[in-house]
């Protein structure tokens, strides 16, 4: 839904918002940049960015080096102020290095991010190779990898053979603002507390100057009290040989990150940005501080585990060069190798960074998954189509929309209710007039094997007649303001409290609120949407929570970006608990952090009905996929404004091939259910949605893999073609798994697109026409409004269910059609994953089917990939379509009982398509089809 926007409905929001909005009303349609900080307006970013490279004051005190089985520790000293830091180095299993830097003796503990890593990452021993007064050399085990610690200035280099893979503090931008005592009136108070503790450190820091913004900072009308003073940290990374970096979502920007010299750094700070613009580095709703570097030789990752406001600067020695300049380098044999330099700056906490050494993209995904976990495996139906709108007005409206889908024979699985369904924006309640009988409504959907999502936002109406509020208040579960009272801010319900989701007791209580007897009117086919979980505070600084608000002992400043993750986690746990641990949850959230993938889906927030926003949905979801969050989508049609019919159709066609497929619209826009644009457009949208449903077996299999091994569902081409430089900065097409290449049409009035088909010596088959194309070429494809280009890789086997029904549940027992796309060497491979589609039994009781299909030597066979598992399916193999085939004389089906039968077939010589009629074998069985 909805951001600060509908603030517009001022009548309901009170006079305060009227004033706040006055600015928006006069402006044009775009983000009001003035509401959000630039680096210059964020005191710590400004201070940090003012540091010049090459002047690092840090020196490693080699005499303090200690090496144990699990780690190396070493003190660093800042020669300017004599403050000592403690460096911890870990070699982690799976080719990763962890670098932790904290103050040796901080005034008080600094925040270390909890609950993101799935466990204490297992270590492997480091061994000391050599040591002298300039530094030490450690072995990282495999591949002659070494870690070099240089003493003065302090610097770390990770090398493989003679090659430097990555350097830390090579530009000398390590900066660690130690906690200090305020040198004004407040000093006495500190001494009063514990003078002895502070005396020694105080002495060392007498020379330090106090700058503006260190102890207090004002932005617009908001003052941040900063009781702990300056606490920011920074570190630089150099990546020799690297020209391409990706990740650090969420930004509405190109997939390949841009150099930030001369502009603002990329910002990571979860914010509710009203009407965001595309192609800029401003912060959005979520933050995942993970960056991937990629070159034709190697892929690596940097995971900066810090939940405070963070800025990332990127510079590249090739970024500024023109093509001519690069050519000149080439001709003249310039010795300069490309290099990308990255610098991370965070407002508080410690430096805790995981260097994932790859070397392949797949390795990096596995490495990151081993740290933060994998994508939650969604219920199958959540991968189907979702129909949302702010708002479906009442039960009759819901029934009418549901019927509309049947009347127009368009499948859908979920209908969504936005904030207006509640009783005065009191979540967990229903508007008694509009939704007097929620269970009747849910039963009506259940009867059609469909589901519903209701919104539950984390701001709670301050209202003494509201049970949820009273309980949170009486249990002391609200976030506190700096003065110790319950923090309050404005959001949809008016004055609201914000539950402290960082508190495990609070989360447990919140989860219990989803029990069927607590959430009145809820049923097992009702799931949850957490919006506004940045959190959004309409009258807060930058529309979010004050940084000096308190979560227990910690300031919001320390953990801001983590709040949204906790909200989604508590909700997902609630949905699991209400089913007694049996059912998989489905929760959509707008704000997220590293690890959020474990709890559900995310979407790209309040986009707009513009072609640019359709385009940007591709790199935005690709970026998220690279850093673990596969279940990503953008509001189909665009949230704000009203799409042209062509844009809407194109968006459906694109959304059908993106992981989270949901149409959504703003309250103020005209209705746009798929059948409201005339029969021709209804048919186009129906076809797009049907393509999605037919492909659900493949989607489900991809999500199983994402859950199992952390491989992204939606992938940039370079992930599968890491050496193909043509793919490195592609924003307009993507792969689903390895085997489907999608090139959405994102230009108005397009009559053709140029798709790039990768892979020298490979072939691709148009899934609509079965026409074969060679890889490693730019292919111009004429397009009509009827579909977007999608290709299946030669060498792959994809399962579809051709019988599209009104919801995915209705298709459960339907048979499969296998599409076997042969490689030039007449080979193909694929998989099929089947389980009950909604419980954890696949995991707890190994109740699933996982098959491997292989086509080789003119025989197609199905064998079991998971012998330890068991599950029975009613589904069978209805049809086998072999693309790139030649005409056989006969096709024989062999089953393990020794039976053989002849299959009838059709052969289309013009397209070389062989269709085998009705093998009829159960999809869970072994079988072979031999072509002669």
């Amino acid at each position, binding site marked *: 839904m909805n951001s600060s926007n509908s603030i517009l409905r001022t009548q309901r929001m009170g006079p305060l918002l009227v004033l706040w909005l006055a600015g928006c009303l006069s402006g044009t349609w775009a983000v009001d940049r003035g509401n959000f900080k630039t680096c210059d307006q964020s005191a710590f970013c400004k201070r940090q960015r003012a540091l010049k490279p090459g002047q690092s004051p840090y020196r490693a005190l080699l005499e303090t080096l200690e090496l144990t089985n699990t780690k190396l520790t070493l003190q660093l000293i800042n020669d300017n102020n004599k403050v000592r830091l403690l460096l911890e180095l870990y070699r982690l299993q799976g080719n990763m290095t962890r670098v932790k830097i904290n103050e040796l003796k901080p005034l008080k503990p600094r925040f270390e991010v909890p609950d993101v890593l799935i466990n204490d990452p297992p270590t492997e021993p480091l061994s000391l190779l050599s040591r002298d007064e300039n530094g030490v050399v450690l072995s990282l085990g495999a591949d002659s990898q070494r870690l070099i610690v240089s003493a003065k200035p302090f610097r770390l280099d990770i090398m493989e053979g003679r090659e430097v893979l990555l350097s830390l503090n090579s530009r000398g931008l390590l900066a660690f603002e130690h906690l200090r005592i305020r040198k004004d009136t407040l000093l006495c108070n500190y001494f009063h507390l514990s003078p002895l503790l502070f005396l020694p450190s105080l002495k060392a820091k007498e020379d330090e100057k106090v700058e503006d913004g260190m102890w207090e900072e004002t932005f617009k009308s908001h003052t941040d009290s900063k009781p702990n003073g300056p606490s920011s940290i920074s570190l630089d990374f150099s990546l020799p040989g690297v020209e391409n970096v990706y990740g650090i979502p969420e930004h509405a920007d190109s997939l390949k990150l841009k150099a930030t010299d001369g502009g603002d750094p990329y910002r990571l700070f979860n914010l509710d940005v009203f009407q965001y613009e595309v192609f800029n580095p401003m912060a959005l709703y979520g933050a995942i501080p993970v960056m991937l570097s990629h070159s034709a030789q190697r892929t690596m990752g940097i995971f900066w585990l810090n939940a405070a406001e963070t800025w990332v600067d990127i510079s590249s020695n090739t970024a500024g060069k023109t093509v001519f300049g690069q050519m000149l380098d080439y001709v003249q044999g310039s010795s300069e190798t490309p290099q990308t330099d990255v610098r991370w700056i965070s407002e508080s906490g410690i430096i805790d960074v995981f260097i994932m050494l790859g070397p392949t993209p797949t390795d990096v995904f596995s490495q990151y998954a081993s740290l933060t976990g994998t994508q939650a495996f969604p219920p199958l139906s959540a991968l189907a189509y979702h129909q949302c709108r702010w708002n479906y007005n009442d039960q009759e409206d819901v029934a009418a929309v549901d019927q509309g889908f049947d009347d127009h024979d368009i499948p859908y699985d979920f209908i969504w209710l936005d904030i207006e369904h509640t009783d005065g924006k009191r979540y967990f309640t229903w508007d008694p007039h509009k939704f007097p009988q929620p269970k009747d409504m849910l039963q009506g959907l259940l009867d059609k094997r469909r589901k519903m999502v209701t919104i539950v936002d984390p701001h709670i109406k301050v209202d003494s007649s509201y049970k949820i509020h009273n309980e949170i208040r009486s249990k002391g579960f609200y976030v506190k303001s700096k003065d110790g009272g319950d923090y309050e801010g404005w959001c949809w319900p008016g004055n609201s409290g914000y539950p402290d989701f960082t508190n495990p007791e609070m989360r447990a209580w919140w989860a219990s609120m989803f029990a069927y007897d607590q959430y009145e009117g809820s049923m097992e086919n009702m799931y949850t949407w957490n919006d506004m979980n940045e959190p959004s505070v309409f009258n807060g600084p930058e529309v979010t929570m004050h940084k000096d608000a308190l979560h227990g002992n910690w300031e919001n400043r320390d953990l801001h970006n983590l709040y949204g993750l906790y909200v989604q986690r508590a909700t997902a746990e609630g949905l699991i608990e209400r089913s007694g641990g049996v059912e998989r949850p489905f929760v959509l959230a707008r704000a997220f952090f590293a690890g959020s993938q474990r709890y559900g889906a995310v979407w790209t927030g309040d986009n707009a009905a513009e072609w640019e926003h359709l385009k940007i949905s591709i790199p935005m979801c690709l970026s998220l996929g690279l850093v673990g969050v596969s279940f990503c989508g953008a509001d189909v049609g665009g949230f704000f404004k009203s799409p042209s019919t062509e844009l809407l159709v194109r968006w459906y066609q694109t959304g059908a091939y993106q992981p989270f497929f949901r149409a959504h619209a703003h309250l103020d826009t005209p209705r746009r259910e798929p059948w409201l644009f005339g029969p021709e457009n209804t048919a186009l949208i129906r076809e797009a949605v049907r393509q999605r449903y037919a492909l659900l077996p493949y989607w489900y299999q991809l999500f199983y893999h994402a859950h199992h091994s952390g491989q992204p569902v939606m992938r940039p081409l370079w992930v599968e073609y890491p050496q193909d430089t043509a793919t490195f900065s592609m924003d307009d097409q993507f792969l689903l798994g390895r085997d489907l290449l999608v090139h959405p049409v994102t230009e108005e009035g397009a009559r053709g697109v140029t798709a790039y088909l990768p892979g020298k010596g490979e072939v691709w088959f148009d899934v609509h026409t079965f026409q074969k194309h060679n890889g490693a070429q730019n292919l111009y494809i004429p397009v009509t409004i009827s579909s977007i280009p999608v290709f299946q890789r030669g060498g792959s086997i994809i399962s579809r269910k051709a019988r599209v*029904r009104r919801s995915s549940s209705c298709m459960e027992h339907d048979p499969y059609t296998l599409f076997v796309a042969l490689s030039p060497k007449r080979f193909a491979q694929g998989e099929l994953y089947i389980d009950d589609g909604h419980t954890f039994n696949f995991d707890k009781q190994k109740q699933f089917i996982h098959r491997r299909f292989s086509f080789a030597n003119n025989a197609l066979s199905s064998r079991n990939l998971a012998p330890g598992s068991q599950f029975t399916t009613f589904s069978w193999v209805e049809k086998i379509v072999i693309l790139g085939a030649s005409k056989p004389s006969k096709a024989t089906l062999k089953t393990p009982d020794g039976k053989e039968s002849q299959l009838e077939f059709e052969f289309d010589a013009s397209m070389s398509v062989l269709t085998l009629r009705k093998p009829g074998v159960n999809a*869970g069985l072994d079988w072979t089809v031999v072509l002669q």
Partner: protein
Amino acid sequence: MDFNLAGVHWLSDLLLCTQPLPVPTIPTERQFYEENKPFTCLDGSSTIPFDRVNDDYCDCRDGSDEPGTAACPNGSFHCTNAGFRPTFIPSSRINDGICDCCDTTDEYNSGATCQNTCREMGRKERESLQIMAEITKEGFLLKQQLIHEAKRGQEDKQGKLTELQGSKKGLEEKVEALRTVKETAEDPEKEAKERHLKAWEELIRMEKDKTRMAEAFLELDDDADGYVSVAELQSHLELDPDSDGSLSETETQGLLGGADKVDTSTFETVWSGIKDKYLSETLPLFFFIRYIYRLCPFNRVSQKPKFGGSETNLGLWGQWAGPEDNLYSVMKYDHGQGCWQGPNRSTTVKLTCGKETVVTSTSEPSRCEYLMEFTTPAVCQEPASLDEVLHGHTEL
């Protein structure tokens, strides 16, 4: 486990392939499905052995070989629905676990337990058709009456006009002559009696009028403060003295006798000035939960919060907007008050045949786009005979 799976295979084969499946029950098509003879797809695209009809595999491009299974993406399934109305459903709804045909024939292998509801549905439909037919009949009679009355009224008036014009002159002369006679010849006693009767009738009329006035006062007093204010009265455009389409504050004040607001006692004097218009021009109001919606046909639609607040224009009369074959079934009112970042408010009014002229529901399906359902005899069509209606829809 293998044994089980094999069992499942066998089971599904049995269920899917060997159970006798419904063959089309439409008499005109049944002839094409002749057992033991090769079947030619209804589009003529190919001919297949008969055992491939309903074998749960789609052989015909038009889906005609699988009238009883879900195998063809474009197929349709015929529900006989004895006792109700036969229908076609997309074949994707066969065995999807959801009862679509009231005779349960679509769910023959899904495990769904469906009840045959055809009889009940048939009964209900007949009832509602009967009610509809009665409404239509009565509505149509009312409509004819309206037309008749309008016609007669017009003729009468025309005739009277001519007649009156003719006799006017003569009468004028007579009047003058008689006046003097009358004045002297009046019987004073009779006069007294008549006066008494008149006074009595006047008293009854005034009592009735007082009741109406009290009702009107309550209706007008939106904020229930015991006063009718200028703002509250201003929404009643029908009271506009100069009929220029707007009721200015001054005009309204004029109606209120120069006051900003009037209490019940002062309202008496106001009432006499507005009652004729107020009564004749106001249609029955439809009370919604939060708003009062007002439809003045061919003029405007407006919305007013039930408890105070000013009126919002939801659209001015635009045009007839029904489908080609029934243009006068939908009215469109547009160019209402603008919405923030959105369109001007507009209202679609759907007219259906009914005995009364009344707004039956109001909703806002999309922000600032309103929908009203409006029944009136004026749109009733000449009904087919009830027997015909019932017969045409039932197959028993």
